């Protein structure tokens, strides 16, 4: 339990530092802002309590907000992402997956196509809320959606890249 806690704490700190020190500093265009820190939410195991999931989502977002002076923006989006994971996880056949040795939704469990769809959908929802709260104006919705779509490709690509680097092939 302690080992688990330490592992996830280390992961979230590493991801937040990566986000704050690298990805947030990359100026890749005003419509292209990848947020790979949200990978942390996908890393949480199936056994996580759903309330814990929400709180962790909220805290992750809050921490990022705290260091980037965007109070509430990332917290709202990441909480929604955690909520989405809880909802989507219910639809998945978790018992079978756990028996087969999968601890979280991944390429091996869902298949590459489904996993990409899953990641893209989640990221898109997260980014839409994030950019919408940032713009805070309904008239900017088309621009918000376009920014979310472009940034989603970047986020998904970086998440896949991180996965390829840090996760053992056997448990992907």
């Amino acid at each position, binding site marked *: 339990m302690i080992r688990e806690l330490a592992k996830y704490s280390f992961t979230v700190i590493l991801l937040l530092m990566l986000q704050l020190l690298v990805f947030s500093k990359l100026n890749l265009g005003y419509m292209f802002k990848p947020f790979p820190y949200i990978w942390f939410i996908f890393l949480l195991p199936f056994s996580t309590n*759903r*309330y814990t999931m*929400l*709180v962790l989502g*909220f805290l992750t*977002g809050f921490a990022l*907000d705290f260091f980037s002076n*965007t*109070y*509430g*923006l990332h*917290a*709202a989006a990441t*909480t*929604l992402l955690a*909520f989405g994971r*809880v909802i989507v996880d219910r639809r998945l056949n978790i018992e079978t997956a756990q028996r087969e040795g999968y601890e979280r939704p991944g390429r091996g469990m869902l298949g590459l196509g489904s996993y990409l769809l899953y990641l893209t959908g989640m990221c898109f929802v997260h980014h839409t809320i994030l950019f919408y*709260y940032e713009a*805070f*104006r309904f008239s900017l919705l088309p621009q918000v959606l376009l920014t979310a779509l472009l940034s989603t490709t970047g986020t998904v690509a970086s998440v896949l890249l991180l996965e390829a680097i840090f996760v053992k092939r056997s448990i992907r």
Partner: protein
Amino acid sequence: MNVIIRFIQANAFYFFFGLLQLICLIQVVRFNSYQQSFYFNTSRSFAGKIIASRQQVLDYFSLKSMNAQLMQENLQLRKKLNENFMFRDTTHFRNHRDSISATRYTYIKAHVIQSSTNRINNFLTLNAGSDAGVKPGMAVLSPGGIVGVVFDVSPGFSLVLSVLNSKFRVSPMIPDIGFREGFISWDGKDPAYVQLNGVNKFEKLRKGLKVYTSQYSPNFPDGVEIGEIASFSVPGNSSFYEINVRLSTPFTRLGGVYVVKDIYRPQIDSLNKRIENLD
């Protein structure tokens, strides 16, 4: 009630999610200046529209009192119009002056910005000074009557020796009984009354006689109202009346006043100087 509690219990996860989202939204609005300004602008303009439309309706109910108020204000402003201020008494007594004579007096408008009535030596401050052409020695009149004599000037302001000052003197006349002597001074008691001294006790006085400035006053044009006789008596063995004159100028609520510019004053002064030089 039970149903509501059970509903919340059954959907506690969703309520928790909603709560977290609400916290986030509050943070967004509370701590981010851009979103904050948008939120407050929107809510304020919304509230402002409601208040404005409410006022539009309410205005109709107060139309009558507003009309009365405006009429009152109009009346006040109309009273302040310059053409109302005809120096009635000056023109009234002009009949003994030649009609082809040149203008002797012009007037400088000023406003009393400071005044006192509760001391023995009272002064007034006017908002017109040497820049406006005010010089020491000029008489100051109000629409009601005499006010005082300019004592000192600065470029923007002037100090006026009030009638309510123990050093103030003016020569009076009572045209109804053909009286022109004595002098007006103030005993330092009641700011509503000045004293008329040096009137022989054989003069036939009565209450309500109007007292005006006479042409013997060095500063004042003749025929400006001072006030009317309020009471008179002969004390003991004296051969003179003690007369109280009710001032026509309301000293406690002075506003606009006129500084009298005597065009021939330099000539008179230079003549008077020759008298001094004779000695």
